[in-house]
């Protein structure tokens, strides 16, 4: 389909806080979303714990977690929330995509 023709690669950063149940659920949700968006080798997901890596969180202006950043393809996006509304998140990510 359109996506495959463009062959653009997704890059995500997911910011979480510690290894709480909340964090684990957010990671599960985002992995599900990524897999349903595209093939496994077509996306890159980096999970960052703000407690482990506060500098990177600061550099990315993270105010609260879970925050999901889409850096590629443009336009960049930032979604905040528990990511439990998987379809909603997915719809938001492809929104604005040409």
């Amino acid at each position: 389909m359109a996506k495959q023709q463009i062959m653009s690669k997704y890059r995500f950063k997911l910011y979480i806080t510690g290894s709480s149940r909340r964090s684990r659920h957010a990671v599960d949700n985002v992995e599900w979303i990524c897999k349903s968006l595209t093939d496994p080798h077509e996306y890159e997901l980096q999970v960052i714990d703000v407690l482990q890596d506060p500098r990177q969180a600061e550099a990315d202006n993270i105010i609260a977690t879970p925050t999901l950043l889409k850096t590629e393809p443009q336009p960049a996006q930032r979604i905040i929330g528990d990511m439990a509304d998987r379809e909603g998140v997915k719809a938001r990510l492809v929104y604005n995509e040409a």
Partner: protein
Amino acid sequence: MAARNDQDASYQDLLHTIISGLSDGILVVDTGGRVLFLNEAAAGLLGRSREQLLGREFGYPLVGKEPSQISIVQPDGIERVVEMRASAPTHWQDADAFLVTLCDVTRQLQISERLRRIEKMFDHTAEGIIVTDEEHRILEVNEAFTIITGYVPEEVIGKTPSFLKSGQHSPVFFRAVFNELEKTGSWTGEIMNRRRNGEVYPQWSTISVVRDEDGYITNYVMNLSDMTVLKHAEDELWHLAHSDHLTGLPNRNLFYDRLGQMLLNARRNRNKTAVLYIDLNEFKDISEGLSYDIGDHVLKEVAGRINGCLRSNDTLARVGGDEFAVAAGGERTGLDATALAVRIMEAIEQPVRYNGIEAFLKASIGISLYPDDADEPRTLIRNAHLAVYEAKKREGGSYHFYNQIMHVETEEKFLLNSMMHKAVMNEEFEFHLQPIMELAGEGLKLAGGEALIRWHHAERGYISPERFIPVAESTGIIKRITAWMLEQACSMLQDFRDGGRDGLYISVNVSAQDILQGDFVAGVAARLQRYSILPGRLQLEITERVIMEDSQTIRRRLEDLRALGVKLAIDDFGTGYSSLSYLKTLAVDKLKIDHSFVRDLPQDRSDLAVCRAIASLAHSLDLTVVAEGVESRAIEEMLASLACEEVQGFLYGKPLPAAEF
């Protein structure tokens, strides 16, 4: 129009006041997630100032039907959990925007997590738990309660726990419980309760009062554990510990009790009581020279014959391998006791026939009298025992009265005491150690040693501790002797450590008098520090007799010693009678089974039963078991099969001078 504008302006002021005063955070973000507006509470929750946040990218607030939990790490490093809700896009100053509300749920989550943990504990602990309201109506019970009592929650909720009553306690008992609860906030003790199936069982309970902030009682919490198993062991041990398996006669322990009772009666009626200590002279030759079988037969026969000489109110007991004791009450004078002793000697001297063998026996009898020689059982028996030694000095069967040696005794005691004073000053005592072995899964391992005192007097030669320690205890010089022993033990432990044998421990015997000294615990602590010794390497042994006195001071001292880290063992266990529920509350680590129960293993079935009962009891109380008097591999194997942890005895070596240990 101006008025309308004024009205609008004041209305906006009002809204502003309300919004900035809200405790929940309010944010307005545009469709790109950028912050357009926020109130003070939102800035506080996000850990930054409003100025820092305005215009910054918060993120597209993707929230479904349920609010979304988000985490914020505040500048002080503390994580707060916030519940985020977002409205569908609305208008904000002519653009699409979301209204986001933030509510701090950190504390709420902490409480519910704690409740979940408590609930788990409540459901899974092995102790039964009952929670009632202030009027004792049951609010909750746990699974263990159902397992112990047989009642399911639906049957008991809303009722008071009185359906558990066995009827074995008086109203006075329960009043005392409630008085204690009122006064101290908790009560601990044993209650007999009734299960759903009607069975009455002993229960170890702790009841605690829960009060609200104003001090009013809101709940009672009762923890209960079933002591049935422990009680069975206790009853069995009582029986084993009080009767002699072979002859069916009372043993030494029960003899003490019975004699105590007889003395009470004698005191009331102003009567005399005689104690006869009977020793069979040639018994060892018979049982070891011929066979154990005939030995057993002889003992049963002799028991019957002595019994035939007694009146119904007299008590006969087997107090040792070939030793019997008689307590004869009534109006007997010294002369009557003589007649009884002669009758018993004659009865015993008749040959015993067994499988075609004839055994000839003679008896030596020591006699002590109440109230002439002593007024309490222990001393009376000890005196009769001492008199036996005198009787034995003569050929053949003979009897001897204690009062004939009493005079000599007192003089002897006086002399011994002054000799001991000199011995302490001149360091005549020697410090010996008897090895204590660990019965580990794979063979034996040296675990430590029991400190024993030896005394070679320049003129009188070797003097046995059994001879001088009782005198030292009665004159108080024991305190100086114990202090010396402790000093030696600590110095030895230091040598062990320096010599790379720092796993070994030393056990030192202490008397009630030692423990009762006000500075005893401080003295032990000071020595441990001076020699830099791990407290766990020092063990103190107190006899069961001292424990049985149930002195509050001794109990406290034991707790203090344990708090230091020093190990505590009960010595001569089995010879007295310690209540289990009492033992359970004492700060001790080990039970040492008295050698009298060990040396005749594995043949003596009653001793075996006692050892087995003590071992299972000790293990159920998490205590380690040490057996004394191990003289053969057969005994050792038997003890290993009882999961006895440590052993000591001649099999592993006689006590050695410290330097050779």
